[in-house]
């Protein structure tokens, strides 16, 4: 079985996060990713965790050989610091090593298959797997307006149709029929890429079973977005500094308040910038505005030009303007801002929370939205990548067999929902649609 990994602790605020890796052969990497690789099994070691780009974190690590661990196969666990940046780097490292992200119940399933669980526990394994296979459909019920799996089915059909023409052009090249041209393949794949891209954009990460409203913090650099974000979370998750442009990626977390929860996103400050890396972060911010429900603009000056610029960026989204650093004596002149706060001493933060939860409750969806599991979103993203790769090749008219391979992989990203497409049924489609053969 392949090597899989998963975050064993919740993917939100925590002091510590634990990653589990399991699968025969996984111990081979210990020597290369740990500065002080563990030597004895079942003993806890302290070590640095290293990727190609340097040290990720200082971590605890313990490994198990074969049947001694939970899954009954070679496995190890990494205890890292719970920051999202660290979590992200660890995930990237594991993916680079070609480990797969574990599906729901994967570890328990493996434990069961390797005789680590009793027969009576089998039912619970089945339940988990069943839940995961139904999950796609449940997610569609959760979605604000259904149609999730229907859309996926129709995309997979469109991929199948394209493959029909492309495989036809390969296997029946001496027929007097130009599959690629007559099939309108080049136009179709372009449309498919655009449409599927739109679909992927409509897919949002589903929270633990409930809909989560997303709140994005934007504003000029150094206005105190990260500080306010940390204040809301009650922990130091985002990097705070007095150098403008400190936050470069989006940082996400979840806030629980009044029995409801909302996701908050901290972002890079918005201004025209020379720094290439930061520039990317800002693009990301702007791109994310359309995905969130509420935009919170954070300012530390009364400059209404800044305010209007950012309000404009927020478009039609619910917008809350916040004036920060009240402890420094700034005041809300003419009630220009919705809330006055101090991230430093916490003044006004409760009022802000109330406002956010009030506004986010009313925040209706703009257009259709689907809530999907991260695994599916990842699959769809990959699928889109394969479709685009195929599109480039088909447009240039070269490497048709590689485009065919891209499409085969793209189709595989629908397997979890739609089930596999066999080559025999693909051939069947070709024979029933085209007069082929001698």
């Amino acid at each position, binding site marked *: 079985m392949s090597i899989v990994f998963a975050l064993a602790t919740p993917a939100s605020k925590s002091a510590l996060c634990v990653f589990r890796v399991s699968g025969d052969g996984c111990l081979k990497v210990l020597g290369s990713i740990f500065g002080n690789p563990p030597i004895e099994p079942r003993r806890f070691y302290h070590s640095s965790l290293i990727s190609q780009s340097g040290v990720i974190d200082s971590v605890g690590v313990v490994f198990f050989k074969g049947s001694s661990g939970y899954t009954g196969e070679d496995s190890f666990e990494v205890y890292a610091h719970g920051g999202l940046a660290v979590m992200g780097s660890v995930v990237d490292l594991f993916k680079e090593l070609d480990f797969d992200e574990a*599906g729901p119940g994967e570890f328990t399933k493996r434990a069961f298959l390797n005789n680590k669980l009793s*027969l009576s526990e089998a039912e619970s*394994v089945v339940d988990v*797997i069943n839940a995961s296979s139904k999950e796609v459909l449940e997610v569609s019920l959760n979605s604000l307006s259904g149609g999730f799996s229907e859309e996926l089915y129709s995309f997979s059909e469109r991929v199948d149709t394209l493959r029909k023409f492309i495989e036809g052009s*390969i296997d029946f090249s001496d027929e007097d029929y130009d599959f690629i041209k007559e099939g309108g393949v080049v136009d179709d794949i372009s449309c498919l890429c655009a449409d599927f891209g739109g679909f992927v954009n409509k897919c949002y990460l589903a929270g633990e079973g409930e809909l989560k409203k997303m709140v994005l913090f934007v504003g000029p650099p150094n206005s105190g977005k990260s500080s306010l974000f940390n204040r809301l979370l009650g922990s130091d998750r985002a990097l705070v500094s007095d150098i403008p442009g400190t936050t470069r990626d989006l940082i996400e977390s979840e806030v629980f308040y009044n029995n409801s929860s909302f996701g908050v996103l901290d972002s890079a400050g918005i201004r025209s910038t020379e720094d290439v890396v930061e520039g990317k972060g800002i693009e990301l911010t702007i791109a994310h505005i359309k995905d969130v429900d509420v935009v919170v603009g954070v300012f530390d000056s009364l400059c209404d030009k800044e305010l209007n610029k950012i309000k404009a960026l927020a478009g039609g989204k619910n917008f809350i303007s916040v004036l920060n650093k009240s402890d420094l004596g700034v005041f809300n002149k003419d009630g220009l801002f919705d809330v006055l706060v101090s991230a430093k001493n916490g003044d006004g933060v409760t009022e802000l929370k109330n406002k956010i939860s009030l506004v986010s409750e009313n925040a209706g969806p703009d257009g259709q939205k689907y809530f999907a599991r991260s695994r599916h979103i990842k699959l769809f993203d990959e699928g889109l990548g394969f479709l685009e790769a195929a599109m480039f090749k088909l447009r240039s008219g070269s490497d048709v067999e590689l485009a065919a391979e891209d499409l085969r992989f793209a189709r595989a990203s629908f397997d979890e929902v739609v089930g596999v497409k066999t080559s025999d049924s693909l051939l069947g489609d070709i024979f029933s649609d085209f007069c082929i*053969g001698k």
Partner: protein
Amino acid sequence: MSNEYDVVVVGGGHAGVEAAHAVYRSGLSCALVSFSYETIGQMSCNPAIGGLGKSHLVREVDAMGGIMAQATDMSGIQYRTLNTRKGNSVQALRAQCDRELYKKAIQDTLKLTDIEIIEGEVIDLLSNKESVFGVLLADNTEVRGKKTILTTGTFLNGIMYTGQDKIQGGRVGESAAIPLSRKLYSLNLPMGRLKTGTPARIKMSSLDLGLMEEQKGETPTPWMALSEHPTEHQKQLSCYITRTNKNTHKIIKKNIHLSAMYSGNISGIGPRYCPSIEDKVFKFGGKDSHQIFIEPEGINKDLVYPNGISTSLPKQAQEDFIYSIAGMENSQIEEYGYAVEYDFVDPRSLNPTMETKFFKNLYLAGQINGTTGYEEAAAQGLMAGANAANKIKNKESLILERSEAYIGVLINDLTTHGVTEPYRMFTSRAEHRLMLGQDNAEQRLLIIAKKADLVSEKRINSFEKKENAYNTFLENSIIKRKVKSFIDSSGKKIDLKEKASIETILKRTDISRENIIEISDTGPENLLFLDRAMVEIKYSGYIEKQKREVLKNKKLNLKDIPKNFPYTSISGLSNEVKEKLNKTQPTTVGAASKIEGVTPAAINLLLVYIKKAELETLDA
């Protein structure tokens, strides 16, 4: 009278001769029993070897010491590479052959061996309840063998149809194998009927080729065989292309009720990719013209094979519609088209070694397993022969993976999914086709073949010499040299911001071959190596990905599903999937995962339930 051999092969078609030859090469004694010596190596249908998916099989058979590729080269009268504008892995060579010369090449090759050829009809198997130990001929001779391989093609209870006429026989002018069919039915092997058809044969001199489009062969003329071929090609001939027209279709429609296939006489299922002209006209009414390839039957033969108009219409109607085609108005028909219906054995009753699950020492290969085509037959014959020999010698079974060879795909498809129509190979059946080029069959298979005693030390040595030369080329090659600009395949000059190696450029985009030759001043002696390197680099990223896929599937393929597994009891499987599993009865979890519509979650459930069943039996 009774003779005893290591292996007895029944049938002198493409499967039979490869089976016998494989046994011979592995050093064991072999008898080949066939109706008549004269028809050994006979091409029943069109006089061509190769094509997409098929030349891949031929080259693999060649790399494993088979004789089909060499016989093709001894008789090839026109060669064409298909898909030249597509990438290397999906290019395929197709060769027209002189039908007589092909047969002669096969027969001559067999003469050089100590294979005992016995003329006669096999009417019975010598068997007890669980195993087979030879065959009985119509003249009461017993031919005993430790292993018996049946390769009886279209002959088992074969019935030929032309219009309302119906005669017994497996091929025009030959008889059918009736008693043997009865015997197999009596053994309760799972069997069914399939059908196929063939067009009329026409005198070349009666055609007006001037009205047709000429299709010349490729120059320089390539070879089918990878390393050992004759010094010179046969005389090369052209093919011609003409088309059916509205009038042709009108005639066919008028007579359709007389067609054997449409009047309900035939129940067997025919290949959808080899439709009769009746099918083309009826199922695809929208098209009012279909292509016909006029293929010469041989160098000294005044006969052509009109590829594309196979039919089971009565003779008069065949004449009428043929006369309506441009250039064929004055056709002199030498032989009429016909359809043939025959018994086949469900190949799911075979192990991957081609031995039947129900009877020890009985192997089946070729069209008897529901396939169609010479190449498919040859590949199975070789594998059956090699496995029978290996078993006698107590050697490991010879089983090729889907990722190793088209032969692996063929046998895996047959033995796990069975057939619903005559099975033909296509490149799209091979999910790992990027790794399985027709040019790299030796790299993939020669060593495996050596282990099974199928190829000589000499061939291995010369192969290794070639490989070493290639590796030296790669090491010193300029492919690693960095350049600042290059010319892409459309002739555009591209300037790079930063120097990059030719290898890197090749991986990302297309650089013109001429340009590489120029930059690297590769001499003509190294051009083949350069081409190979270009392909390998271009595919490398994809192949890495495929290799990972293979590794992932490996464990699933090894996990067996118990016989008669109660799929209906698995909660969480959709009824549709349950039904498919029940019908297919896959033997491994890997096979189950390749059934249409099955999801990864379904496979997970299956794994858990299999485990549960195992634990329950332990508890009990």
